[in-house]
C-alpha cells in the first residue's frame, strides 16, 4: 500500500473481461464487467464485488462468476487462474500493479491445462494424482510414539524446506509445454467409478509434471523417505516420467513460491540415469 504512488491518476472504473463457461464441454464466452475503482484491490476482491453486484457491464443480470479461493494469502494454492495471460494466484494479483501493465482492463481466464468445471474453476485432481504416483510420503512404521526422527543437518533442512512449500497450485504445469490437457467425457452408461478409473489411467500415462518430480526429490532426500527412492525413480523413468520434460524452464519462472523446480528436475534426471544403469547391471 505504501509503495504505490498515490499521486498517480487512477481510473474511476475498472473493466474486467472474463472468459466464462457454463459447464464442462460447453462453449466458452467472454463477458465484460465493470466495478468502481478502489485503491489496494486484488483480483479476489474484484471477483467478490462482481459476485455481489450480480450484473454485467450492460446492467444485465448474470450469474456470479464461479472461481476457487481459500486462504487469500497465497499459501493454499486454490485461486490459480490466468490473469492478463499469465498463470498465477488471484489473491496476490494486486489490481494497482495490473493496471500499471494494462490500464484498459483486467482479463481473467481459467487455467489452460485442466478441464473447466465452470467459469474460472477447473478440475485439478490430476495434480494430486501425480503425488500418489511418485509416492510423495514418508513410509513410517506407524503413528505411535516411537521416539524422535533422525537428526538432520541445517543444510538438509534448508534444501528440503523450499521444496516442501509446494502448494499444488498448478502454475508450473499450466505453463509447461509438455503438459497436455486431458479432458475425458463420461460415456453413456458408464458408472462414476468406471469413469474415475478411466481418468486416473489416462493421468497415469501422461506427463507427471514438475511439481511431482520435485516432490519425489524431496522425499528421496529424507532419511526415511528414501526407503522408497527406487519406487519413485521407477515411476519417474516410466511413461510420462522425467524424459517427457522438454527443458523449457517455464515451470520455475512461474512458480509463485520460487521453488527450484529445474534443479529438482536436474537431480531427478541424474538419479534416474543412475537408477537405470544400476537396474541394467542388476538384471
Amino acid at each position, binding site marked *: *500500500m*505504501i*509503495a*504505490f504512488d498515490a499521486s498517480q491518476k487512477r481510473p474511476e472504473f475498472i473493466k474486467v473481461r472474463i472468459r466464462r463457461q*457454463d*459447464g464442462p464441454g460447453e462453449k466458452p464466452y467472454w463477458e465484460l464487467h465493470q466495478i468502481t475503482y*478502489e485503491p*489496494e484491490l*486484488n483480483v*479476489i476482491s474484484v471477483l*467478490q464485488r462482481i*459476485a*455481489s453486484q*450480480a450484473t454485467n457491464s450492460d446492467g444485465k*443480470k448474470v*450469474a*456470479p462468476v464461479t472461481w*476457487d479461493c*481459500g*486462504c*487469500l*494469502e*497465497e*499459501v*493454499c*494454492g486454490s485461486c490459480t487462474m490466468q490473469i492478463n495471460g499469465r498463470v498465477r494466484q488471484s*489473491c*496476490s494479483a*494486486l489490481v494497482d500493479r495490473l493496471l500499471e501493465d494494462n490500464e484498459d482492463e483486467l482479463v481473467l481466464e481459467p487455467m489452460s491445462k485442466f478441464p473447466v*468445471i*465452470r467459469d474460472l*474453476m477447473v478440475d*485439478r485432481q490430476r495434480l*494430486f494424482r501425480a*503425488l*500418489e504416483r511418485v*509416492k*510423495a*510420503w*514418508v*513410509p*513410517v512404521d*506407524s*503413528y505411535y*510414539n*516411537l*521416539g*524422535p*526422527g533422525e*537428526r*538432520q*543437518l*541445517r543444510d538438509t*533442512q534448508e534444501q528440503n*524446506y523450499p521444496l516442501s*512449500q509446494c*502448494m*499444488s497450485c498448478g502454475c508450473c504445469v499450466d505453463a509447461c509445454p509438455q503438459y497436455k490437457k486431458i479432458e475425458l467425457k463420461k460415456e453413456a452408461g458408464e458408472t462414476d467409478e468406471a469413469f474415475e478409473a478411466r481418468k486416473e489411467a489416462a493421468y497415469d500415462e501422461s506427463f507427471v509434471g514438475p511439481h511431482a518430480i520435485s516432490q519425489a526429490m524431496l*522425499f528421496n532426500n529424507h532419511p*526415511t523417505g528414501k526407503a522408497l527412492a527406487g519406487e519413485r525413480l521407477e515411476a519417474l523413468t516410466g511413461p510420462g516420467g522425467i524424459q517427457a520434460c522438454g527443458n523449457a524452464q517455464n515451470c520455475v519462472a512461474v512458480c509463485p513460491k520460487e521453488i527450484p523446480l529445474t534443479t529438482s528436475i536436474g537431480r531427478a534426471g541424474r538419479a534416474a540415469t543412475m537408477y537405470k544403469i544400476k537396474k541394467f547391471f542388476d538384471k
Partner: protein
Amino acid sequence: MPEQRVIVVGGGLAGLASAMKLSELGVKVDLFSLTPVKRSHSVCAQGGINSCNDQTRQLGDDEWKHFDDTVYGGDFLNHQPPVKEMAFWAPKIIELMDRLGVPFNRTGEGFIDRRRFGGTLYKRTAFAGATTGQQLLYALDEQVRRQEAAGNIRKFEFWDFLGPIQDETGRCRGIVAQDMVSMEIKSFAADAVVVGTGGCGLVYGRSTMSVFCTGSAASRCFQAGAKYANGEFIQVHPTAIPGSDKLRLMSESARGEGGRVWVPRKPHDARMPKDIPAGERYYFLEERYPEYGNLVPRDIATREIFDICVNDGLSIDEERMSVYLDLTHIPKAELDRKLGGILEIYEKFQGVDPRIEPMRIFPAVHYSMGGLWADYQKSADGGLEMGAPQNHMTNIEGLYAIGECDYHYHGANRLGANSLLSCIFTGLFTGPSIVAYMANQVSGAGDVTEAMKSAAQKKQQERHDHLLSNNSGGDENPYLIHQELGDIMTRVATVVRRNDQLSEAIGKVDDLHKRSMNVSLADTGNWSNQNVIFAKSLQDMFPIAKCILKGALQRDECRGAHFKPDFQKPSLTAEDPGERRRQAEVWLDEFDKNNEKYLKSTVADWNDGSQSPDLTYEDVDTGSIKPRPRLYGLVGADIIEDVFAERTREEDAPATV
C-alpha cells in the same frame, strides 16, 4: 465383525490426524471437505507448535509448566484434564511429526530448533520457517494420501456437510452432504462421525481465516441438537495486515524472533520510521510489561494496541489505525531463515520490504476458543482416560468434535502455537475412543435404513430447492447481508464489549437472520452453484453469531479475550502499605466472588422456536491447578500475589486438631 466406517468432516490438521489414526486402527474412513484437504485453513498457521523439550527442561520447564502456562494464559476457563493430557503428549507429537517428514528448522548440530512464543518464558515452539501449519498439514495430507492409495480412506473433496443423520434415539448414524460441483445431495451412513471443521471467523466478515471458515458445519450440528460452548471467546490476534478482502495474519513468531512493537511518541508523526530516533519511539509493550515485553499473551497485546490507537490517539496514521512491528534490527539472513514465509506475504501484499521498513499492523479476529461442547473422561492422574468412548463426544451420541471446533483447550484466550498442538492431539487421541465406542454398539453403518437416509436427504433437498426457487420471491442479497453481519460483529464483539451495544446488536442480528432467510440468488442453476452454497452457510452463521453475542452479553466480567471495561477490576491506588494491603484483600475477595459466578463454561442449546440460543453454565474442572489472578501489568500485582500466596498456604495447611 462387519467393516467399520467413520466419517470425518473437515480435512485440516484435526480431521487429517483423525483419519490417519483411525485407518491405522483398522477403520475405514470417508473424509469430507469443502476443498482439497491440502488447501485447508491449517495452512495459514505460521509460527509453530509448542512442547517442552530437552533444552527447556534443563531450565526448569516440564509438561506441567506447559499445562500451567496454558490454563493461566486461558484465564482458567480451560478444562484442565484435556489440557493436561495434551501438554504431556506434546513432545511426542512433535517427534511424530518429525518422523513424518516435517522440515522443522534445525540447530547447527541438527536438533529441532525452538523459539519463544507469547505467554511463556521458555523457548518451547518448534517451527518450519514461518509456514509451520502448512508443513504440518502437508505431512498429514501425505499420510492420508498414502492411506487412500492403500484403500483405507475415501476422500470426498468439494463436498459440503449439510447435517448429521440421527436415528429415533438421537444417535448420529451418518451425514447428509452435497457435491459442490454436481449439486447432488446424498446421505452417507457411518458407525461414528467426527467433525473437525475449524473456526467461524467469517461471522466477522473479514478475519485472518480462510473463506471456508464460516462455522456452518458446527452450526448445523448445533441446530441439530449439539451444544455449543464458550462462543463469546473469540481471539483477536494482535498483529494482522489490514486488507479489503482479508486481514492477513502476521505471526506472533515475528515478535518471538525479536520483533518490537512501537508507535511514534508524537501523534501521527509524518517522518519515515527510520528517521524517528529511539527516544521518540514508544515501545509501549516493553514499557508496560517489562517481564514479557512484546510477548505478553495475545488478548493483552491486542488490547494494548487497540488502546494506544483508539484511546491514546497514537496510531501511525490518523485515518487508518496501525502500529509498527519492527524487525529491521535483525540480520536479513536470520530473518529469511526463520520468518521468510511471512515476510514474503507482507512484501507481496503491501509492496514494502519488512526487512528494511517496519510493518504496519493492527489486530484482527483470528480464532474461536469456543465450539461444540464435547465430553471427556478424567483419568485418575488428572488427565484423560485413554480410549474412553466419551472423549470428545458431543451430546449427540456418536458425533465427535475435535480441533478448533471443540471448546476445551484454550479457555478464555489461546496461547500462540498451542492450536496446531490441540488439533493434532485431538485427532490422534480420539482414535481409540471412537474405536471403543463402535465396539460397544449393537448396530452400525450397515444397519442404517434407506428410510432414515432418504428422510434426512429429503429435508436438505427441500431447503436447497427452496433457495433455488428464490424463496418464492425473496429480494435480499446474501453478500450484502454478510457484510452487514460482519460490520456489526466486528464493532461490538471483538476487543471491547459493552452491554448496551451487545443488546442492540442482538436485535439487529436477529433482523438480519430473518432477512437472510429471504435471499434472492443471482444463480438458480444446479451446476457448481457457489451462490446457493454461500447462502446456506450465511444462514447458518446466525446461530453462531447469536451465541457469541448472547454469551458476551450475559458474562459481566473480564476474562481473557472477553473484555468489558464496565466490569474491569481496578488497579490498587493506595500508597500507604497498610491501606494497599487492605485493598489487595478486597481485590482478592472480589476475585473469588467473581470466579464463583463466572468461572464457568457458557453452554448453548439452540431453540428452534425462538431462533435463539438458550444458555446454561457448566462448572470448569480446575482440579489440578487452582485458579489464580491473572495480573499481567496490573498496578499492585505484587501485593495481590503476596496476599494470594498467603491465603493459599493457609488453605493448604493441614488442619490443626
